[in-house]
C-alpha cells in the first residue's frame, strides 16, 4: 500500500484518522492522520508543545480525543481509559516509570497481575518461583541482563530500571508500545542498551512509537520519523530516504521539502 517501512513487511497495525484534541482554545492535536506499521519503530519528533505528548496520551487512553478515529487491525477502537488501551494491546511507558522502588524485579513486573498458587488447593499465595522464572524468560527473550532480580529496584541503575519498566509492558500481550523519552537521563552505554531492547521488540513483531528529542537516537533507531509542529502532523518520512537537515527543517519550519 504505501512506502513499505524498513525491512519489515508493511501491514498496518494501527490507523489514526483525523484525530483532534483541544485544551480550551488551543488545538493541541489538530487533524492528525497516520498509520503505524506492524513491527516498525516510528519516532515522533517535534519541538516542545508540538503536540507529541497529547497525541500519545490519546493513543494510550490517558486523554480521550475530541474527534477522530483509531483503528487497530481494521477494527475501530475506543480508547477512553488506560485499561481500554491495555485491552487493545497498547502499552505505554510513562516518563515517571511507575515502578515501586522497594519491590524487587519480579514483584514490579507482576504487580497487579500476580501469579498465585493454592496451598492444599485452598489458600492462595504468591507463586514467587513462577513469577521469577517468567521474568527471567521475558528478560532472556529480549536479551536483557539484570545482575540481581531479588534486590529492590532502587538498587538498580537508571537504564536497568528502564528495562524493568519495559518488561512490565512486555508481560502483557502488547502489539504497540509507546515510549516517552525512554533514553532521557541515561548514560551513553545505558541508552544504547535501551535502543537494543527497542530493536529486539521490533524483531518480536511489536510496533513501537518513540518520542525523542535526540535526533541521533532517532536516526539510529527509527524506521520512519513523524514530525509534528503546532499540533499538526508535518509529515512522515522514511529514515533511509531522508537527512537530518531535512528533519530539522520540518521541525523548525513545519514544511516537508
Amino acid at each position: 500500500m504505501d512506502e513499505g517501512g524498513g525491512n519489515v513487511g508493511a501491514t498496518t497495525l494501527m490507523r489514526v484518522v483525523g484525530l483532534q484534541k483541544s485544551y480550551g482554545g488551543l488545538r493541541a492535536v489538530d487533524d492528525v492522520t497516520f498509520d503505524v506499521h506492524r513491527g516498525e519503530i516510528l519516532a515522533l519528533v517535534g519541538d516542545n508543545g508540538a503536540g507529541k505528548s497529547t497525541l500519545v496520551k490519546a493513543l494510550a487512553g490517558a486523554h480521550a480525543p475530541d474527534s477522530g478515529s483509531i483503528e487497530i487491525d481494521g477494527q475501530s477502537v475506543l480508547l477512553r481509559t488506560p485499561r481500554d488501551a491495555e485491552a487493545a494491546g497498547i502499552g505505554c511507558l510513562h516518563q515517571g516509570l511507575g515502578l515501586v522502588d522497594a519491590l524487587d524485579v519480579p514483584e514490579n513486573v507482576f504487580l497487579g497481575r500476580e501469579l498465585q498458587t493454592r496451598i492444599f488447593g485452598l489458600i492462595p499465595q504468591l507463586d514467587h518461583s513462577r513469577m521469577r522464572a517468567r521474568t527471567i524468560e521475558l528478560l532472556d527473550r529480549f536479551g536483557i541482563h539484570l545482575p540481581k532480580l531479588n534486590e529492590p529496584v532502587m538498587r538498580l541503575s537508571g537504564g536497568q530500571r528502564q528495562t524493568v519498566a519495559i518488561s512490565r509492558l512486555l508481560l502483557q500481550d502488547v502489539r504497540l508500545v509507546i515510549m516517552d523519552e525512554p533514553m532521557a537521563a541515561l548514560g551513553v552505554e545505558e541508552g544504547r542498551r535501551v535502543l537494543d531492547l527497542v530493536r529486539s521488540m521490533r524483531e518480536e513483531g511489536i510496533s513501537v512509537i518513540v518520542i525523542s528529542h535526540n535526533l541521533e537516537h532517532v536516526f539510529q533507531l527509527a524506521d520512519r520519523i513523524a514530525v509534528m509542529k503546532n499540533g499538526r502532523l508535518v509529515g512522515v518520512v522514511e529514515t533511509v530516504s531522508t537527512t537530518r537537515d531535512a528533519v530539522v527543517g520540518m521541525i523548525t519550519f513545519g514544511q516537508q521539502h
Partner: protein
Amino acid sequence: MQNQPAASLSNAIGHADRRWLFKGLGLTIVVIALALIFSLINPRFATITNFANVLTQASYYIIIAVGMTFVITSAGIDLSVGSLLALITVIGFDLIKAGMHPLLGVLIMFALGGGIGGLTGLLIALVKIPPFIATLAMMVSLRGLALLHSAGNMHYGLPSSLTWLGQGDLLGVPVPVIIAFVFAVFGGWLFNHTKFGLHVRAIGGNREAARLAGVPVNLVEVMVYVMMGLITALGGLIMIARIDSTQATIGTAMEIHVIAAVIIGGTSLFGGSGTVYGTVLGALLLSMMTNALVIAGVDYFWQLVVMGVIVLIAVAIGNLRERRIPTLSHVLRRVPEDSVANDQGR
C-alpha cells in the same frame, strides 16, 4: 540463566525478607548478646522462669507489632492501638462478667477492633486524613470512651476458659507464647507470600505506581487498619487473660512500645519495606530490656526514658542504613556507585 541455588534459597525464605535476613542476623546476634550480658550481670535474669516470663510479656507486643509492621510498611502509623485495646478490653470484660458467653464476648471484642480499625482506615484512605493525625485523634477519643465506660473501675475475674489463653501452658510452653509464635509465622507468610502483603508493600513504596498497576490502593489501605484493629483485639484478649483484669488506663504508652519494636526490627518508617522477623526480634529486645531494668530495680519512669532513647537510636540507625542522612551518605555510597559503574561497563 541465573544461579539456581540463589533462586531456591530465595524461594525458601521469601523475597522481601531475604535481604532483611542478613540484617535480621545482626539483630539476632544483638538480642542473644544482650541476653548473655543481662545474665552475666544478674543471674536472676537467666532462670527458666524469668525466661518464660520475658517471652510471655513479649507475646502480646509481638502480636500487635506484627500488625504495626503492615501499617508502617503501608506508609502509615497507628497511634491508637493502646487506647483501642483499652476500650475493647473494658467492654469485652464487662460483657463477659455480666454473664455473656465468653465466646460471644470475644467475638464482640474482635468486631469492635475490626470495626473501629475500619473507621480509622476509611478516615485515612477516603477522607485523606494523614495517618498520624487520624490515629492521634482516635487515640484520644477511644481513651475517652474507655474512661467513660469504666473510669475508676477495675475489672477482674474471668472464666478459666479465657484465662487459660494467658496463663495456661502446653508441654510447659506458655500458651501466649505459642499463640504469638504461630501468629508471627502467619504474619510473615502474609507479608511476603500473599497478594495482600505485596500490595501493602507496594502502596507504601509508591502509591501512584501501585494504582497505575491496578492495585486497589484504597481498599488495601482500609484493610490494613481493619487488620490492625483485629490484631489489637487479639493482643488485648491475651493480655487480659494473662493478668485476669483490665481497666480504662490499660495500654497507656503501648503505641510507642509497639512502634519501637517495628522500627528496631528494621522496617522503614517511610514505607515500602519491612520485616516481620525483625519486628519479633525488636519486641523481644524491648521486653528483655524492660525485664532487666525491673530486675535491676530501676524505676518505671526511667524505663520510659530508656524506651524513648531506644526508639531514637533505632530510627537513626534506620536512616543511616537507608542513606537518608546526607553527610554520611557520601561515606556509605559504595554500593550504588559500583552498580552504576558495572552497568556502564567501565
